[in-house]
């Protein structure tokens, strides 16, 4: 763990958590023919009051991880502790009690709200389910919540369709807040929103965190948003955490080549900065999680890959900066990933490292026109 979190009791502790989805064949006798390794051995701790950002490409398992923590999916292997209690196999009343403490905000404010229910019913549902408040008391509390998240309490009887995207996301936030949870898992909470509205929702989440002492697990693919909200950031690749670091340090000095490439790919809204830096372009796609590569899973795309990376899987371990990274050859401060040369053969998904100025390595074939 990084220095700042030593000696504190984590709110959530994941130990060796794995989630495999079976791929089956056959209609009556379903045989398992393979497994999607969605989350493959994650150890992670989330401390009270912090915001842990989780980033990675599509299919890296970040959403699955979120659903495992919220116990919306059962884990295949490993254990999840919440507030000192093992919740891996909780059932019935125990699970219900735990759900009061862990809530979720979803990405799409259109599909995550029932279009045929009124806002009052949507936000008040948690009160019914947990038998906390009914009648006038319930309405009063729902309206308080609406006010907290910046909605007009008079809109209690409206349908979700009558609200804009940003307002709908506020409804989602109010619903998550209803039971005063300790942990809120935000799965891409602002991706579907316009920039100006996105900033409103981020500010709201930050205010609520302060007011209600919330802990966030914040999943997003927008890296600048993650940097803005997070204290620590976990970078995931193919079901594994490859780097876990203090947000500021990660963005200034990524250790894992994947984090480095990911960060260099973010388009910065600043014309001078974007043209002075080198962009490392990872070619190819993320390999299939059904049959992940041997050794370090990033080796087929890594600009620094060596034979050792193919043979031996690097553990997530403490590096010089005090942060965790899973890499045999972590980046040194000031090292330029764009200059790295892989020491192994990489096939179709070869890494091309392009500075923004290079424009030569188009395929050597003829142009689309033989004209």
């Amino acid at each position, binding site marked *: 763990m990084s220095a700042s979190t030593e000696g504190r009791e984590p709110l959530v502790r994941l130990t060796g958590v794995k989630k495999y989805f079976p791929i089956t064949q056959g209609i009556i006798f379903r045989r398992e023919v393979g497994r999607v390794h969605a989350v493959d051995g994650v150890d992670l701790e989330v401390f009270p009051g912090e915001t842990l950002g989780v980033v990675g490409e599509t299919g890296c398992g970040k959403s699955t991880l979120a659903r495992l923590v919220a116990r919306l999916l059962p884990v295949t292997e490993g254990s999840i502790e919440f507030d000192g209690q093992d919740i891996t196999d909780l059932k019935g009343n125990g699970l219900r009690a735990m759900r009061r403490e862990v809530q979720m905000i979803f990405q799409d404010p259109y599909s995550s709200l029932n279009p045929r229910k009124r806002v009052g019913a949507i936000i008040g549902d948690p009160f019914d389910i947990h038998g906390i408040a009914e009648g006038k008391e319930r309405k009063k509390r729902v309206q308080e919540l609406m006010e907290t998240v910046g909605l007009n309490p008079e809109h209690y009887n409206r349908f979700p369709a009558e609200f804009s995207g940003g307002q709908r996301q506020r409804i989602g936030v109010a619903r998550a807040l209803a039971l005063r949870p300790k942990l809120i898992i935000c799965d891409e909470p602002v991706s579907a929103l316009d920039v100006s509205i996105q900033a409103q929702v981020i500010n709201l989440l930050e205010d609520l965190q302060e007011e209600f002492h919330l802990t966030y697990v914040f999943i997003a693919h927008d890296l600048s948003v993650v940097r803005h909200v997070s204290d620590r950031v976990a970078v995931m690749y193919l079901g594994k955490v490859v780097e876990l670091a203090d947000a500021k340090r990660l963005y200034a000095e990524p250790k894992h080549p994947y984090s480095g490439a990911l960060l260099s790919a973010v388009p*910065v809204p600043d014309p001078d900065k974007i043209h002075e830096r080198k962009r490392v372009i990872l070619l190819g796609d993320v390999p299939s999680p059904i049959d992940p590569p041997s050794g370090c899973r990033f080796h087929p795309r890594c600009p620094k890959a060596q034979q050792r990376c193919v043979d031996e899987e690097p553990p997530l371990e403490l590096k010089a900066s005090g942060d965790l990274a899973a890499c045999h050859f972590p980046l040194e401060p000031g090292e330029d990933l764009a200059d790295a040369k892989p020491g192994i053969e990489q096939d179709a998904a070869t890494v091309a490292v392009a500075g923004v100025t290079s424009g030569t390595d188009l395929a050597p074939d003829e142009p689309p026109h033989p004209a």
Partner: protein
Amino acid sequence: MALLEVRDLRVHFETDDGVVRAVDGVSFSLEPGQTLGIVGESGSGKSVTNLAIMGLARGGRISGEVLFQGKDLLKMHTAELRAIRGKQIAMIFQDPLSSLHPYYKVGAQITEMILAHEKVSKKDAHDRAVDLLRLVGISRPERRVDDYPHQFSGGMRQRAMIAMALALDPAVLIADEPTTALDVTVQAQVLDLIERLQEEFGTAIIVITHDLGVVADMADEVLVMYGGKPVEVTDRRTAYYGPHMPYTWGLLQSLPSTGAEHTGDRLLPIKGMPPSLIHLPSGCSFSPRCPYVFELCTREEPKLLPADPQKPEHLSACHLSLDDKERIWQQEVAPTR
């Protein structure tokens, strides 16, 4: 003569609730090899503008002129337009899964496009499809050409779309949110590809996006739209280092800061939400959300004019005086970036 010139384009839709003024007076011109970035929130009219250029804004009342190589596309017959659409002006859509036909092989869709416009044999068209897929960086194109869209990943589909758009070496490429559905790593691949192809073939590009990072990366000129109207037109550097319109300031301030010294500072969102295009506010349509609003703003609509006589290329639609604009930008907006 500019390659593509749009003059006072208006697209209005009649609905039961009233007239939706989706695009209301957009003008710009585009030279070969140039990239124009159109920025704005959802509902600002940026996509409809480009659908209208392509003759695809069905059901809308369209007025104005769209001059492509001097000829007005809006006055053309469908057959004439069809000869230009795809061949001379190509488009990349936001969502590659819904813009590729799921029942046809990727190669067949590219081939169809080539056969529709040129007299070549099926085999030649197929070979060209393979070359195109190779050009956009799809490995083993001779095999992938016979794949269906669902067998491609998101980034590959978008690259296949680009291959299709570039098949006939168009003069103008319209990219509507080309990378919004993609991961940053794939986004970098796709943007890089578009830029390199532009260098190679001298294509003029219109890139529509809400991502100011993409614009900073690609565009030469920036057009900011709000409520169906252009509110600021300028070159890229000015758009980021000295814009004149409070809405542009708001967009820049809404983003998490890029400077390390500002990390963790509170974001400064634009208050309120985008206006309804049926009932636009009187005067300046941004006035209800503008922190610098004054009496004139609600009374009279500002015209898109150069605020600084020294920079006739930099247009903005705002009643604030040039002194005020420069003072507010330097004292209040720029330091938060």
